[in-house]
């Protein structure tokens, strides 16, 4: 299994600001993904973080709002841009070289 570390684990942000979430995996992995989990809900895939190229976004998510980087096989970042209260959520990084494992999530509250 892979150990996935995310930071920050939680943050409170002001409307209109941006926050970058970092995800570090303890081993090289083929695939990395970013999910969002809104309060009391299941996980929704935001995008697949592709190493060395632009991320692949799911319907309803765009690069301008959620820019993603993946400079190597163990690290990725997700930025939540121009935040509004509707962006308050848990953002989860996941990694796969077969089975999918998750970090503990970053809980964002936007005031």
């Amino acid at each position, binding site marked *: 299994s892979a150990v996935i570390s995310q930071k920050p684990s939680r943050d409170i942000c002001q409307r209109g600001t941006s926050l970058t979430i970092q995800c570090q995996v303890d081993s090289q992995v083929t695939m990395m*993904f970013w999910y969002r989990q809104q309060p009391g809900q*299941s*996980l929704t895939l935001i995008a697949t973080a592709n190493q060395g190229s632009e991320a692949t976004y799911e319907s309803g998510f765009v690069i301008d709002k959620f820019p993603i980087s993946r400079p190597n096989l163990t690290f990725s970042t997700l930025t939540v841009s121009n935040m509004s209260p509707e962006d308050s959520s848990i953002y*989860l990084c996941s990694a796969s070289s077969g*089975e*999918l494992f998750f*970090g*503990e999530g970053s809980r964002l509250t936007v005031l």
Partner: protein
Amino acid sequence: TQLLEQSPQFLSIQEGENLTVYCNSSSVFSSLQWYRQEPGEGPVLLVTVVTGGEVKKLKRLTFQFGDARKDSSLHITAAQPGDTGLYLCAGSLRSGYALNFGKGTSLLVTP
């Protein structure tokens, strides 16, 4: 569109009871995973099933993958308060692709 339909959404039972959670789809999955998530944490992988008709046991938990690889079930025998949590099924349409999650089943086991 929800690819995976999970039921029931909520379940509250007494310690010692048995329960079954269902995960259904009209799509065929290359694999299906079950996760358990506790508040403030990321989902933790319980099991992966890949072969139609496969049955896997994890102590008091029994997982079954449908013959057509479109559905799965999780059965818990003699539930304990420590089983309380959010149970999520997730499926991958193609190997190496991101997982699609069901809406989850929130289980509460009271002493």
